[in-house]
């Protein structure tokens, strides 16, 4: 486990303080599906300790984070590193997931994130639940926005990687 340095935000952007970071070889990560559950559960527990309701926060965070990791698990790129970093600003926890990806996947993520931001996100999500046999990766990202009020963006990473940035205001979702 590595603790990252303080992130430098552009002027006007809130400063997110680093909480925890886990780096894994993508080969090791995709070698077992249960790694998604392991990592999401472990990180959720670690970062929820000082939330107003640690148990509920941990459950919510793990639920959302696991979906992201399951998306990452399906990467077609077999080299490089997966980096999971969580930072915090007030009631919002930010997950930065750096995933090795092939160029088509990069395009997929950019399009998926733009759909998430669209006003029809909820509609698209409901259509998928009522019509699809299994959720696509895009629908999984949509669900984060619909059920967890997440905001998603994509940032440039090194050449064969992409960084998904997901802000989760989970404190506000609680009682």
């Amino acid at each position, binding site marked *: 486990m590595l603790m990252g340095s303080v992130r430098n935000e552009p002027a006007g952007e809130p400063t997110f303080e680093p909480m925890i970071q886990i780096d894994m070889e993508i080969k090791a990560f995709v070698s077992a*599906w*249960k790694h*998604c*559950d*392991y990592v999401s559960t472990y990180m959720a527990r670690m970062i929820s*300790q000082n939330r*107003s*309701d*640690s*148990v*509920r926060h941990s*459950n*919510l965070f*793990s*639920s*959302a984070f*696991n*979906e992201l990791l*399951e998306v990452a698990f399906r990467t077609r790129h077999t080299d490089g590193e997966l980096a999971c970093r969580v930072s915090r600003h007030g009631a919002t926890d930010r997950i930065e997931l750096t995933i090795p990806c092939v160029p088509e996947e990069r395009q997929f993520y950019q399009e998926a994130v733009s759909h998430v931001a669209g006003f029809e996100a909820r509609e698209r*999500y*409901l259509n*998928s*639940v*009522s019509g*699809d*046999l*299994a*959720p696509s990766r895009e*629908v*999984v990202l949509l*669900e984060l926005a*619909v*059920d*967890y009020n997440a905001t998603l963006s994509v940032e440039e990473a090194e050449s064969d990687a992409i960084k998904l940035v997901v802000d989760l205001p*989970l404190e506000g*979702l*609680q*009682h």
Partner: protein
Amino acid sequence: MSPYDLLPRFKAQYDANNQEFSISGVIRPQAIDELGPSLALLRDAIGRVRGVLYINVRRLTQMNNAAFHAFSRIIIDACRALPDLKFVVITSSVVGWTSRKFGRLSGIEPNITVEEYDSEFYPGQGFLEEGGFVPILRTQTKLTWRHERTILPRHGMSPGIVMADICCGIGDFAVLVQKEFQPSRIVALDHSISSLDYARRVMREFDIRGIEYTYGDASEMLLDEAQFDLVTCRHSLQIFNRPELILKELYRICKPGGRVYITNEKNSHCLGEPRAESIRWTYNEVAKLFAHFEMDVELGPKSRRYLIEAGFEDIRVETFMVTNMDGDPQDFADVIVAWADVYAGDMASRRGDGPEFVARFRQGFQDHIFAALHPKGYAGWPIWVASGRRPQ
């Protein structure tokens, strides 16, 4: 194989009597095939029921989208094929995501409704949350703490342990334990949001560390199993209509070799001199009043049986009497005043008691207060303490 693989991750079952299909645990499959038997069970249940099928996800702690889609598709398809069949999904307010996620289904098919399981399991909670009961709860704990601080070490309390206080209320017991015994961690759980808000405010104001307050249902907790050296649950089994369900959960979260500590009353044994007869009559009626609302405030001496039946060993039971001689007699009197307000007030009124009964009922409390404040008087409130060890 790692211990992870050996743990049962989820369970699906169908209860034909209640027409209820329930899923519990953690469901995060990679492929839908892994859910084959559970999906088949749901399909089978749909084929058997008439009218309504309850889908109980109260104890579902995690479910990924792959599984959610798979179960949802079967339910949605059934709605379309069987328009007379209704589905009621029962979620828990404790598991934050379930109501939101399953709630979407009612927007897709009108025959699906989603109900958040609420606080009906806590019949006493409403009475105790209303009417500014907080100062009295604090005074009660102050009175019992004089005794419990010396009793607790005989039941597993020691510095550095990891403990849980279930049904923590306003959190005052957890704070006293933290100061006196310095456990390494306390998780304090309650199902009353207003009590937890109060507890967190106290924690902030007094800069108390090491206590994690969490919202939860004592009979179905999100807490992992076997993680606490000591689990306390005070004055709560008696106001719960199915105490064995809570004990089962207390057992589950307690480490093997750890102890579960419970305190309960036997209200009919409250006593006082002078005016003993009037006091005795009123507290016998208190027991009957609580029984009317499915609460057993006579549970104290039954603690041993409950602990044995829940699977505990090395059961230890002792009693203590909170009296007017424990510090300021006015504290004792203040507690009785609050009991009278709630018991002879709201509770008696909701049971439909007439004015004559209420007047006599209230007189017993007045006499208990009289005994407490009388210079030669004696007033008592007996408490049963019991603990059991979870077998290794």
